[in-house]
């Protein structure tokens, strides 16, 4: 099973099993707690996140560092830029 987490981050949130828009909400809440420049990873098993999370990061003006596919979930890594 692919379970290697590649990019190290300041904070990691496991939102697997959480329903749309749960993982996105966790990401938004998590971003609020980070200082500018901080990095955050969110694990999501919601297929909607594949589009929703990058769309939110782009809209909010942050930086998507990685989208790491795993067997049953995806790990999204973002940096807070403002």
């Amino acid at each position, binding site marked *: 099973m692919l379970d290697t987490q590649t990019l190290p981050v300041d904070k990691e949130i496991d939102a697997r099993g959480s*329903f749309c828009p749960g993982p*996105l909400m966790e990401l938004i*809440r998590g971003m609020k707690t980070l200082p500018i420049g901080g990095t955050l990873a969110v694990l999501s098993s919601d297929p909607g996140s594949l589009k*929703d999370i990058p769309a*939110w990061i782009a*809209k*909010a003006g942050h930086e998507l560092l990685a989208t790491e596919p795993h067997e049953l979930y995806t790990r999204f890594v973002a940096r807070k830029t403002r």
Partner: protein
Amino acid sequence: MKERMSIVLFSGTVDKLLAASILATGAAAMDMEVDLFLTTWGIEAFRKGAYKTNTRVSRDYEEYGSVMRELMAAKKAPSWWENLQGAKEIGDVHIAACSMTLELFGLTLNDLEPVVDEVTGVATFMERARNSKVTLFI
């Protein structure tokens, strides 16, 4: 000025409330202002404490109501009420109650959950809706 979504919330069944609450969350997340105008059965859904006991689903799908409830509980899907709290937490969600319905049902703002911001008429809603990018009737 932020873009805006205006929803007329006419329904008071949990299936439609769930759809409205998720759309409100998405709009709030995408940096839009959200206007909810509660009228008719939408007012019923926001009466004090009603969200705790309301299990109604749309008549057309009545037979699926209990299955939907069980699935949501088993998969820990957030209720429409929880989604709405989340939308308010991350964004600007404004909730107005229709004065005509309140009068018809003999209610005041005090009879509704504190999440409801004010009582307005349809003209006030229209004034907001005319400048909205997204308008929905649910």
